[in-house]
C-alpha cells in the first residue's frame, strides 16, 4: 500500500526536486497511513541517498547496475514498474519534467493505473482519490478524480515545498534485468554556460523591448550580481531572432519555469509567454508602455526604458549585495 517516489540525480548528487517530491510523497503516505519508498537509479552514494530519510522516506531502493548508468526512458520505466509491483505500491509520484514525461506514461500503462500530470497540491481526498492540477497552459486549475487502483502523479516544480520528518536510513539494493532497446544514441550535446532556466531561482528575462542583442549584457550583469542561482532568459521572438539561445526561451512552446523571482524586461506580456511563467513566486516588469499586459501579471512594475532602468537597478542590487 506504500507510496513510491522516483528520485533524480545529476553528477552523483540528488536533485533538489527529489527532496520536494519526498515531502509530497510523505504527505500522501500520511493520508493513506502508509510508508514512503524512494527509488534511485544511477550512481549515487549511500551517504547521498541517506539524505532522503530526513524528508520522511522509510526505505530507499538503490538501482546502480551498469546497464542503468545512462538515462533510457524505456529501461527506467520498466524498473520503476517492477519496483512498484515488488513494494505493492498504491501511489507513485514523479516530478513533472522532460525526463519523467518520457517515463511516467509508460509506467501508467504497464501497471494499468491512472495518471495526473502537473499536480499543484496533495490530494484533497484519497477515497475517492481527487487531486488538483494546472490546466489550459496555466490559466486554470482542474480537480481530477483517478478511477484506477494505482494512482500516478507528477508534481510541478516548487508547487509543494520541503518538509522534514526524520526517519532512520534504510537502503536496499534493487535490480531489474533490461530488454533490448530499439533506439541507439548517436551523440550527446550538453548545454554549456550557466544553469538551466528550469533550475534557476531568479530569472532575468528580456524581450524585444531590449532592441538589440548587445543590450542583453545589462541582464547578464544583473544575473551575475544576483549570484549563482540567477540566470538569463528570453521570449520566443528573441530566441527566433537568435539574439539568445533557444534553451533560454521561456513560454508556452519553450520552457515552463518556476523561479522565486522573475524579471520581465522589455516584455509586453503575450499570453504565450505568460503561459511559461505563471508558477513564478514574484514577477517584476520593466517596460516603457504603461498599458503592457505584462504589468497586469506582475507584482511590481517600473515604467521606463530598460536601457536606462537596468543600469540603475544593477547599481542598487550591487549596493544591496555588498551590504548584505
Amino acid at each position, binding site marked *: 500500500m506504500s507510496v513510491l517516489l522516483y528520485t533524480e540525480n545529476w553528477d552523483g548528487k540528488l536533485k533538489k526536486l527529489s527532496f520536494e517530491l519526498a515531502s509530497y510523497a510523505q504527505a500522501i503516505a500520511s493520508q493513506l497511513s502508509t510508508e514512503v519508498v524512494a527509488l534511485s537509479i544511477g550512481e549515487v552514494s549511500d551517504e547521498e541517498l541517506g539524505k532522503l530519510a530526513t524528508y520522511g522516506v522509510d526505505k530507499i531502493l538503490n538501482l546502480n547496475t551498469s546497464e542503468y548508468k545512462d538515462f533510457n*526512458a524505456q529501461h527506467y520505466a520498466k524498473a520503476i514498474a517492477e519496483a512498484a509491483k515488488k513494494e505493492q505500491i498504491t501511489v507513485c509520484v514523479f516530478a513533472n519534467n522532460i525526463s519523467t514525461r518520457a517515463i511516467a506514461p509508460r509506467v501508467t500503462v504497464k501497471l494499468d493505473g491512472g495518471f495526473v500530470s502537473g499536480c499543484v497540491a496533495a490530494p484533497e481526498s484519497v477515497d475517492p482519490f481527487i487531486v488538483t492540477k494546472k490546466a489550459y497552459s496555466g490559466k486554470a486549475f482542474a480537480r481530477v478524480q483517478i478511477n484506477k487502483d494505482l494512482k500516478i502523479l507528477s508534481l510541478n516544480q516548487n508547487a509543494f515545498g520541503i518538509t522534514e520528518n526524520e526517519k532512520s536510513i534504510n537502503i536496499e539494493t534493487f535490480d531489474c534485468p533490461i530488454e533490448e532497446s530499439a533506439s541507439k544514441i548517436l551523440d550527446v550535446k550538453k548545454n554549456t554556460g550557466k544553469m538551466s532556466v528550469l533550475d534557476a531561482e531568479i530569472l532575468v528575462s528580456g524581450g524585444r523591448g531590449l532592441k538589440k542583442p548587445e543590450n542583453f549584457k545589462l541582464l547578464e550583469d544583473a544575473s551575475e550580481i544576483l549570484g549563482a542561482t540567477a540566470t538569463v532568459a528570453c521570449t520566443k521572438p528573441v530566441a527566433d531572432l537568435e539574439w539568445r539561445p533557444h534553451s533560454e526561451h521561456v513560454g508556452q512552446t519553450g520552457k515552463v519555469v518556476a523561479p522565486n523571482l522573475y524579471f520581465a524586461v522589455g516584455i509586453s506580456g503575450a499570453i504565450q509567454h505568460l503561459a511559461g511563467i505563471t508558477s513564478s513566486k514574484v514577477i517584476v516588469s520593466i517596460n516603457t508602455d504603461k498599458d503592457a499586459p505584462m504589468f497586469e501579471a506582475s507584482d511590481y512594475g517600473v515604467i521606463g526604458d530598460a536601457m536606462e532602468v537596468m543600469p540603475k537597478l544593477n547599481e542598487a542590487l550591487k549596493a544591496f549585495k555588498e551590504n548584505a
Partner: protein
Amino acid sequence: MKILVCISHVPDTTAKISFVDDNKIYNKEGQQFIIGPNEELALTRAINIKEANGGSITALTVGLTETEPTLRKALAMGADDAIRVNAEPKDAYNVATQIAEVVKNNNFDVVITGRESIDYNGGQVGEMVAEILNIPSVSGVNDLELEENKAILQREIDGGFEKIECVFPLVLSGQKGIAAEPKIPAMRGIMMARRKPLNVVEPIDFSDATEVLEHNLPDAKAACTMVDAEDMSELVRLLHEEAKVI
C-alpha cells in the same frame, strides 16, 4: 512510408476561458479552435519530409463531429487523408487506447504526437500509445529526419540534446524546433482538402482512468505595485523586505 500525425482540437491560447455545467466543461461558445501548436509544427515537418521523399500522411484526432474542421485544416496543410475516432477525448489513457487501435489496424511506420496539448498539458498520450503497442518512443523531438526504415532524431534532455537513431515502427512527440514555423495552407490546399478522405471510426470500449470533476480559475492577482524608475533602491528594498525573494 506511412506516417500518422495525431492532432488535438484545442481552443486558441489567446482565448479568454470560462467553464459551464458547474465548471465541469470548457465553455466553447464564441471560441476559436485550432490544431495544437506542437502538433502543427510536427505535422509541418512530416509534410516537408513527405514532399521530399514520398510516403503518405494520415491526420488523426479523437473527437466529435465539431473537430472535423480542424482535421480539414490538417488536410489543407498537406496530409493525404484523415481519421476521426468518434469519442470525446476526456482521458489520456482512453485516447491513447483508441489511437493504438488505429495504428494496429493500419500498419503505420511512424506515429507523431505533439509534446503536449495546450488544454490539459498532459504530454502523456504519445508514450502511452508506444507502451500499449510495445514499440519504442522518443519524446521532446526538435529535429527529425526519416530514412527508409529508421528515424534520426534530436531530442531535448535534461541539460542538453541527444541525437538518436531508432528503427520503425516508433512513436515520437514533437516540439518547437521540429519545424521553423507552421505551414500555412495555400488556397489550392484548402480546395483539395474538401475532397480528401476523412473516415470516421467508432471507439473501442475503454473506461476512463481519470475524470475531470471541476475547473477553477486562479485567484485574481493583486494590483501591481508601481515603483518610480528613478528609485531602484526602493524596488530592491521591496523585493528584500516585502517579497522576501532576495
